């Protein structure tokens, strides 16, 4: 008979769930992890562009599990469309390990200023910027723990924007670098700015039972076949199961959290692969389904003390949803302009560029008047995925390109240049038109209301995005790149989600307390990126991992000694 009672029930197995399961199982508590998707192993991942990126085989079928997205039409009215139609998909990895299986692993810590954005720069008109209830110093030990437990490779360098570290070096040496990295360094030196080796959640060498990077060149969006990528699955969950204290149940779609008259969560109900309802009881529940789906689960889990949804007495669940603001730049480096020795080294697929700039993390430029929060520039290869690249070659202002002209264009595109991209990350300003709720009509295949996301952006995102993208373009020009383009966008990057259950000291304006425990349900924790009241100007994954390790410690304290 299936065990139905545990110390801890973790819902979701990605970067927010893995550290909780791992830490508590290691400490001797009984843990069950409920994951709605299947459980793949390293050997199940292939570099198949059609699987990962054309048919989205690692995500739910949008016919069965759509989400609704609201966008503003030309009359400023919010129009809702199914993600099946809207060309955006907020699911990011429907399997054990979640979206951490498919990340690129550009790992940046937040900086001290990110924890006090309001006190440093003030609020913006129409924005809901607040300080965090904890400081960088509170999270620093956990960033270090992630370096060791998840595995972060890199090289520590001194630069003006560097955040304090408690250790001198990363535990793993940097991954191999492409010659483009050196070219960026030279250009940045000429410009008087500091290029930084980008830390990566990718093992440069084998460690324990995980292999080192195989440098296939197909990393972000693809599952890792060697275990080098620091997914929650490869880095943590296998070890959690090995303790004998952790059970992972794939194909377990949690539909409801039941709460009692005191407001405490008593059980999780999930549908198993056969569609049967199964109940699990636990002393503590940790929700980590990624921001949109975590809010959705709380909102549909009403109870006698939670009439508006679990922990939603304040009406704050789902509010202040965050994505990542930003822009991008790109340029080409024609092989014809290189010497005979250089060109072959630039044609290599595999080694990483691994360069970032944080010289404009805080922008002090008269164009903005007072100093403003800026962001991070990451230099990366253009994705090698050939179908995606080729499909962009068929479009022109005059219509589709086909026939022999298309063939000549493909030959040129794939053979004549190396390409560099710059991605700019800045704060997604929290505001009232970025939130998730329940759709009043559309239901998923289990009959539950689907998430309805309004992903409006604040104009400030665009201003900073354009500024940073232009800086990226300047570096590309200095590198001698051709066809340099830059742009910013207000569209939400669907893979960079946070917020929706912000933590804080005031129960009227936050869902979680500073320990990420629900103000209104003492045994409910939210351990994914939902807790973030502001997102910082870097990808979120390292911070989500670090905070989940911190939450695990808070859960341990709450559970107390292990009962025999």
């Amino acid at each position, binding site marked *: 008979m299936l065990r139905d009672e545990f110390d801890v029930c973790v819902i979701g197995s990605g970067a927010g769930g893995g550290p909780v399961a791992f830490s508590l199982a290691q400490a001797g508590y009984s843990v069950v992890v409920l994951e709605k998707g299947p459980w793949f192993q390293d050997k199940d991942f*292939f*570099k*198949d*562009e*059609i699987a990962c*990126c*054309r*048919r*989205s*085989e690692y*995500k739910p*079928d949008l*016919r069965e599990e759509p989400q609704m997205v609201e966008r503003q039409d030309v009359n400023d009215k919010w129009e809702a469309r199914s993600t*099946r*139609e*809207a*060309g*955006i*998909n907020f699911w*990011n990895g429907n399997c054990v390990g979640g979206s951490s299986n*498919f*990340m*690129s692993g*550009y790992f940046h810590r937040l900086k001290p200023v990110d924890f006090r954005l309001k006190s440093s720069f003030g609020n913006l008109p129409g924005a809901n910027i607040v300080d965090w209830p904890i400081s960088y110093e509170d999270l620093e030990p956990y960033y270090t723990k992630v370096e060791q437990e998840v595995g972060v490779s890199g090289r520590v360098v001194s630069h003006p924007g560097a955040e304090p570290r408690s250790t001198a070096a990363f535990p793993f040496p940097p991954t191999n670098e492409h010659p483009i990295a050196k070219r960026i360094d030279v250009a940045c030196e000429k410009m008087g700015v500091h290029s930084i080796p980008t830390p990566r959640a990718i093992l440069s060498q084998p460690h324990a039972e995980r292999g080192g990077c*195989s440098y*296939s*060149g*197909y990393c*972000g*969006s*693809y599952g890792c*076949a060697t275990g080098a990528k620091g997914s929650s699955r490869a880095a943590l969950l296998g070890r959690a199961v090995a303790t004998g204290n952790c059970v992972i149940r794939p194909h377990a779609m949690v539909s409801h959290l039941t709460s009692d008259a005191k407001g405490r969560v008593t059980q999780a109900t999930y549908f198993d692969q056969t569609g049967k309802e199964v109940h699990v009881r636990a002393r503590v529940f940790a929700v980590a389904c990624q921001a949109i789906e975590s809010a959705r689960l709380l909102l549909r889990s009403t109870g006698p003390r939670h009439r508006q949804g679990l922990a939603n007495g304040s009406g704050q669940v789902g509010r202040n949803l965050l994505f*990542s603001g*930003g822009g*991008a730049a790109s340029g080409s480096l024609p092989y014809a302009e290189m010497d005979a020795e250089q060109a072959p080294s630039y044609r290599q*697929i595999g080694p990483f560029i691994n360069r970032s700039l944080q010289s404009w993390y805080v922008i002090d430029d008269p164009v903005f008047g007072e100093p403003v929060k800026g962001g991070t520039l990451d230099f990366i290869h253009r*994705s*090698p995925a*050939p*179908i*995606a690249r*080729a*499909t962009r070659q*068929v479009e022109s202002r005059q*219509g*589709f390109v*086909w*026939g*022999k002209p*298309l*063939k000549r264009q*493909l*030959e040129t595109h*794939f*053979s004549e240049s190396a390409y560099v991209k710059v*991605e700019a990350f800045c704060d997604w300003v929290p505001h009232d038109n970025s939130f998730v709720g329940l759709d009043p009509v559309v239901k998923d295949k289990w009959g539950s209301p689907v998430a309805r996301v309004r992903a409006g952006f604040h104009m400030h995102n665009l201003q900073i995005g354009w500024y940073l993208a232009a800086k990226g373009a300047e570096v590309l020009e200095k590198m001698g790149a051709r066809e340099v383009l830059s742009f910013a966008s207000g569209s939400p*990057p*669907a*893979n*960079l989600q946070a917020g929706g259950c912000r933590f804080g000291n005031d129960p009227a304006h936050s869902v979680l307390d500073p320990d990420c425990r629900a103000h209104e349900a003492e045994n409910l924790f939210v351990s994914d990126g939902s807790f973030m009241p502001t997102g910082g100007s870097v990808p979120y994954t390292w911070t989500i991992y670090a905070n989940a390790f911190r939450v695990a410690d808070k859960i341990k304290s709450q559970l107390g000694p292990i009962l025999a």
Partner: protein
Amino acid sequence: MNNLDKPMKRRRFLARSLQGLVLGASSLSALEAAARDLQLQLASEEMGISAGQWEALAAVLDHLLPSEPATKDQPFRPGARDVQAMGYLKLVLRDPKLDPEDTRLLQEGVTALEERCLKRFQRRFPDLSSSEQETLLRDFEKTLLGERWLGEMLDFLLEALLGDPSRGGNPDGMGWKWLGITPGFPLPPRNSRDSLK
């Protein structure tokens, strides 16, 4: 944002009546004959697409990505038939995960193209010269349905050219070799999708 989701472009089915086609009197008999042929071909429908329509699809694919045999000065540059684009398309249509709207768009588009073809040239698409095919397709591209349908055809064609060979196209990585593309590794085992074939 490297792993931004890039789903296959959504093509919305455009409901367009196939009835009410107005035919020019001068070509009536030729059209009647062609229509009889089409009726016969409907008997051998495969996946909702008649044998005649499959021929039209093959001709369209050949036009969009023509084969170019190797010459003394030029290497082999594969086209749609070399990369087994038709076979790939049939496999895609059998995939239960394919959105039925994509299938409907494909059927709807080829039907509309054939109608236009008969109306304008009184011949079927495979029987047109290359320049006539180009004229017809460029004309079709200007319609909403035509644009979506051609977008879908080009999407599938490029998947057949550059997708993993286990998917049914790109035999022996022919498309990759032509364009000097280094595929990732590990690749799916060659027999991993036999069940689809």
